[in-house]
Structures are given as C-alpha cells and as structure tokens.
C-alpha cells in the first residue's frame, strides 16, 4: 500500500471508530492522516515496538490519537479488534494515547510537552551513540504553550539533528481560528529564529512530506521542523475548516455521506466490509 492509499484507509477507519463510539476530535485526526501515513509507511524505522534502536514517535497533539490508532492497526501493531474498542468501557484506546497501549512511546493529552520529552530521547540517543531518530507531531495551537518553546530552544542549543518536529498547521484551535485567538504567524519564521531547519509543505501531499522528511536526514547539526499546512477535517467536505468538528460526533446521515466521499479501499476486516454497519447509532 502506498502512503496515499494508507491515508485514505486511515481516514475511513477514523470515521468508522468515531461514529461507532460517538466521539469527536474527528477534524483533528483527519488533518494528520497524510502525515501519519507517510511517517509510518516511508519514514519511521520500527522493526519492533520494543526495539531500543527503533525510531520514536510522539503524538504530542494527543487529541488526534484516533488517527494514530488507525495507522498502528494498519501497520499490524494493533489488531482490528483492538481498534474497534476505541472509547468503549475497558479500552486502552482513549481519546488521548496512553503508553500502556502497544506502540505508544509516551502518553500525551496535555499540550506542549511532547517536544521536550522527544528532545530528551534524542539527547539520550546521542549519548548512547544510537542512530535512531525521534519524531514529534505537534499542533499549531500547541505552539501557544511556553514549554514547547523551552524545548525548541533546548533542542537547537544542543544541535539535536536526530529530532524532527512536525507542525500540523491546520489553522484551527479549540475555540476558533488560530489567527483570531493567538496568532502564531509567521510560524515558520518563529521556528527558524529558534535555530531549527524549517520547511513548509502541503501536509496533504505525500510527495512533499516524503521529500521534506528526506531532507531532515541531511541535517547534521540542527533539529528539523516540517510545518505541514493542513485542513481540519480534510477529506470530508462538510468538515473541512469547520472548527465544530473539533467536537462533534457524526450522525448516521453524516457518517454515510462522509464515507461516500471517501474513495478509500476499505481495510479487509472480515465480515460485511461496511465499516460501522454493525454498530447502532448511539446518539
């Protein structure tokens, strides 16, 4: 499966699980589907989830965990049955990711902390003379957090070239547009001025993302950030750039329409093949 196909499948799985569970944060999960697809398809070297030499990934914007669960399932790290437990009683698949779940390196949910933890992992890897990399996906609104910039300064000062940040720059935050709430622009200049190798790409273009990640490997003395311009709710027409989809669960009619818009080859899950079919609409 190429990254585009993986992203489409991840989107379908996001819709299926959020519809089944009646849980929101759909827009944010959809906006990172392409980024995760490229990372997990082409970039991250993870031979086993407990291999100390593996590349690390921290989803610092933890509220998009559903996208991570979907990609972990597609990579065989989670089973489809596990994925189906999303936000049901007794699950390890919460709205925010938890390290008790296989494949999650660090629990997140409180914004602004993943980059510092990733910086510590990267610093440690260098001391251990290990060559693996650490990737941290943050949101643009997460850049409101001072602790993120503490980490940005630390990583640049220590020339952590084995650390890559990705900013999901979808321009929306919990209560409106980022430019109206706390304008981070020009966000690329901010990162550049903090000493990071900075690239701005279309966060829905697998080719641009892959090329940007390849470029980060050529940086030998500074950390890298890839600012991925994305669209909240990408792939579902009525969700795109509508911040209400930070919260709303899907109705059955919306779910049907959203799936209809997906041209995804749905994952082989056995059964009927229609995602969500067996789950009653709980709303």
């Amino acid at each position, binding site marked *: 499966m190429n990254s585009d196909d993986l992203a489409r499948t991840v989107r379908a799985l996001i819709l299926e699980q959020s519809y089944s569970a009646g849980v929101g944060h759909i827009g944010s999960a959809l906006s990172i589907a392409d980024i995760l697809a490229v990372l997990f398809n082409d970039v991250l070297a993870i031979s086993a989830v407990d291999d100390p030499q593996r590349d690390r990934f921290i989803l610092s914007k933890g509220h998009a965990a559903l996208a991570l669960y979907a990609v972990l399932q597609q990579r065989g790290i989670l089973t489809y049955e596990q994925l189906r437990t999303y936000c049901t009683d007794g699950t390890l698949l919460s709205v925010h990711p938890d390290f008790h779940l296989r494949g999650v390196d*660090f629990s997140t949910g409180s914004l602004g902390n993943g980059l510092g933890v990733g910086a510590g992992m990267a*610093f*440690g890897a260098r001391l251990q003379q290990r060559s693996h990399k650490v990737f941290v996906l943050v949101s643009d609104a997460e850049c409101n957090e001072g*602790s993120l910039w*503490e980490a940005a300064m630390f990583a640049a000062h220590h020339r952590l070239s084995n650390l890559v940040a990705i900013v999901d720059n979808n321009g929306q935050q919990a209560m409106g547009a980022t430019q109206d709430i706390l304008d981070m622009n020009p966000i690329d200049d901010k990162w550049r001025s903090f000493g990071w190798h900075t690239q701005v790409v279309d966060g829905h273009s697998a080719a641009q993302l892959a090329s940007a990640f390849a470029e980060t490997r050529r940086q030998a003395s500074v950390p890298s950030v890839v600012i991925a311009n994305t669209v909240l709710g990408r792939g579902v027409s009525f969700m795109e750039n509508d911040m209400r989809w930070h919260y709303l669960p899907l109705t059955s009619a919306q779910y049907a329409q959203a799936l209809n818009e997906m041209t995804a080859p749905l994952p082989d899950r056995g059964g009927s093949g229609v995602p969500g079919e067996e789950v009653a609409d709980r709303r």
Partner: protein
Amino acid sequence: MRKAFIDTLVDIARVDDRIMLLTGDLGFMILEPFARAFPGRFLNVGVAEANMINVATGLALVGFIPFVYSAATFVSMRCYEQIRNGPVYHRLPLRIVGVGGGFDYGFSGYSHYGIEDVGVMRLQSTLFIVVPADSLQLTSALKATQTHPGPVYYRLGKTERTPVAGLDGRFEPRKCVTIGTGKNVLLITMGDMAHEVLAAADVLRDHGVASTTVIVSSFNPAPEEHVCEILKGFSLAISVEDHSVQGGLGSWTSELVGRFNIPCRLTCLGITDAHLNGVSGTNIYLKKQAGLSSESIADAALKLLGRG
C-alpha cells in the same frame, strides 16, 4: 546537605553510567564536582523547569536515571504537571532534587520558600519522597533509593548543619527514627527541623517534661504502621515542620490519627498564611516568627500540657 548530595551522587555515578544530572541553572559552586567528573552526563537546561522534567522524562524513557536539581519550590510546582504526566505516570526512575525546604532561602523572600513541596508531591502516591534530617541521612537515603524503579523526590536543606544527635544517618523506608523514651509528649518532625525539635526536647527536660522525638524521613511509602504504634503510647502529640501545616507532616499525622482511631490529642505546628507577610530575615529569624524555634516549640508543648 548539598555537598553531601553532590559527593554521594559522584560516587554512585562512577559505578552507574545511567546517572545524569540536570539543573535548571541553579547550583553554582555546588554541582561542579559532578560536571567535572562526568561532563557528558551533566546538563544545564537553562531556566526552564518544565522542559527540564520533560527532557529528563525522555532520557529516562531511553534508559537513563536523570537527577534534576533546582529550588524546592520551583522544581515541585513550576513543573508539577510534567512530573505527574511524565515520571509518575510512566513509573520512570527520575530523581527530583529540591533544595531549600521551609525558610531556607531566608532573605530571598516568599517566591523562594519551600513550604508546599512535600504536600503537593505527596499527592502523587507513587512518587517516593525523601526528607533527610541531615547530610548523613541524605547519603544513606541516596544509596538506599539508588535502584528504586520509580521516581523519587529529595527535599534538601540548604544550610550545612551538624549531624542530628542520635540519628546516626539511619534511613529505612517505612521506618521512622525515635530519639528519647519520654512519655509526657510525642514530638513528630521531618527533615532538618529535627535540630530544633531535639533542642526543644532538651528545654522540656529542663522543665521536667519527658518527651520522645520521632523523625519521619519518607512518604509514599511513609512509616505508617511504625508511627501509629508509637502514637498509641501517647495522649499528646505535636507535629513540627518547616512546611505549610496543610498537606505536609501534620496533615499526614492527622490522617493517621483519624484513619486508625488513635486516641491521641494532636497539635500541628508549621507555617501558616499569618507567617507569610512579606517580612524577611534569616532562616533562624523566620522560623522563630513562625513559632518554630526550639523555645517556641517547647513553649507550645508546655502550654498544651497545662504547664505554660
């Protein structure tokens, strides 16, 4: 206590190359022996406590045992959420060293007083808290907790004081140390307040009052059973701490009395809002103002015994 800390840390770091030391830009003239011995394992992260905990969390996740060092109030509260979500939740061997309990920072003023650290840290029930009474006990505690798999908070006194007489550096989790055998009143204390409390015991003895002093040096686990057993032998106990009366040693003792139905009258001496009035001074002066000098502790005991 800071010299004993760094000397012991250098010793254990020689035999354990996982140990690192991070500072939030504090510890000038204190931390240099470690920095000189292990330059690659010493890291001044700058004035950024939240990031210090996050970086240390990342280091612990890949196999290191990072010690983070700052003032007790900064390293317990500025980065409290990072401590909760990182080393506490992920059960990581991260060591938090907070310098300056109580009024140790003296003339530095309110911003520097470590008066809530034990209370807030105690809420994290898997965070092992060590409150050494003197340098010898700190050294024992550092060695005893060397292989502790989860996080530890060490509350260090800033002032170098003589060893606590009768303590002999003993440290054992779940155990307290008792000094004296008097039955009129039980004095319960923690950390280097043991000095003032033992001096108060001497004053009391001069007034014909026989006391026993209990020194508590750890929480999570605390010496619950041990102290309960001792409390049962007294009708009056006084807790004494250079910490807020809310959340610290006095609260812990009150919880024991309540939970285990111990028929012992308890009074809690410590720092209250009334003592935080902008008036500055030496540690000794401020303790006296807060009723925590040996004389005022003894006076309080005598009053409670009806002899004041």
